[in-house]
Each structure stands twice: as structure tokens, then as C-alpha cells.
């Protein structure tokens, strides 16, 4: 079963797609499925994570269940 990663802003350009299906599981296992350059960019300290629409205070210990959505939110520049 799969979970979904969503890439916002410049991260979408880097990933080449707005979202990506990955095998569910612990976050470390999810990152291991990604190209190294993308994984490094997603782990930058100024990239926030949102799990099913809820902003995470920190990403440690996150396990993605089937159907979950994990969004990667780079610094905003809106308005």
C-alpha cells in the first residue's frame, strides 16, 4: 500500500513532479526510496513537514500509513 508525498514551491521543480506515491512505512524508509539529491533537499532545516494537513513540530518518529499524505513546505514567499 502506498502513501503520497507532496512537493511545494521550488521542491516541485527539484522533484520534477508535484506529488509521488511511495511505499508506506517509517520516514527513513520513505527517504531511502528517493533520489539522494531530492532527499537532501527535503531534509533541509527550513523545509517544514505536514502530515495529512497538519504541520509537524518535528519529523522524528513519523510512520506513513497507507493513504497518508506528507507535504514538504519550503519557506513561503506569498502575498
Amino acid at each position, binding site marked *: 500500500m502506498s502513501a503520497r508525498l507532496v512537493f511545494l514551491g521550488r521542491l516541485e521543480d527539484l522533484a520534477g513532479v508535484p506529488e509521488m506515491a511511495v511505499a508506506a512505512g517509517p520516514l527513513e524508509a520513505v527517504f531511502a526510496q528517493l533520489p539522494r539529491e531530492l532527499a537532501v533537499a527535503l531534509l533541509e532545516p527550513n523545509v517544514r513537514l505536514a502530515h495529512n494537513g497538519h504541520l509537524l513540530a518535528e519529523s522524528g518518529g513519523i510512520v506513513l500509513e497507507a493513504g497518508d499524505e506528507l*507535504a514538504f*513546505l519550503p519557506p513561503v*514567499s506569498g502575498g
Partner: protein
Amino acid sequence: MPDARLPDARLLDARLMDAPFDPALELGRFNAGVPESGGVVSFLGKVRADHGVAALEIRHYAPMTLPGFRALAQTAARRWQLDGLLIVHRIGEMGPGDPIVLVAAASGHRRDAFAATDFVMDHLKGEVWLWKRERTAAGWRWIEPRAQDHQDRARWG
């Protein structure tokens, strides 16, 4: 009307628009919804026609962006005496001169309306989930947060 009421029945209308909007029409509708107010202050942000920018694109994240607008509106409504608050924000691609954002606050007294509008604008720039990129002759470029935006928000304590 796609609006909602704050818990105390004041008008709150926060929307994301993926197509051009008519600021005069929006402001007229908002004003019609606050017939008891003593004043309405509005701010219209547009795509600047400078720096060789040919297009601007704003992207959002549906599960979080509009909820963030609503939370910001609630914060402003707690802080000032408002009869209503309007936030209309474009997403998608725009050209020079196109409206990006319209914020309006209605109040019994002008100072609350001015302050709330200013506050909402400062917090729309950097505290809601929107990402912006612009296209010049050199191609598309993502806009990074500016220190000035942070200083603008810091004014509010």
C-alpha cells in the same frame, strides 16, 4: 455568497481564486454585507510592472492555505473591533497589472479598519502557505522570503 460568519456573527469571507477577479465587484459585495459599518478600508495588491517580470505564479497547498487565511482573519477579528473582514487571494499565473490580493476590513471606526487591513497584509506575506515564482527573460525563478517581510510582521508584537 461563499462567506461564513465568525462565531460572533461578523462577516468573514476568505477565498482563493484560480482565475482573475474584479476588485470593485468584490468590494461592492463585501460592503453590501456590512450595512451597519462606519467605514471600510481596503488594500489591493497587484503584479508590479517592473524588473522585466512577464508573469507571476502563486501556488498553494489546499489542506493548509485557506485554513491559514481563516486563522489569520480570526486573529485580526480578536484584536480589533471589526464588523467584517474580506481576504481574496489569487493563485495560478498572472500578468503585470493583474490583481493578486484584496483585503478589506469593515469597522465602526476607521482606525480599527486601517490597522486590521495592514496587519492582515503583513501576515499574508510570509505567514500563509503560498509560494511565488516569477518569469523574466531568464526564465522562472522562485521568490525567497525577504527580511523586510519579517520586519513588517515584527511591528505587531
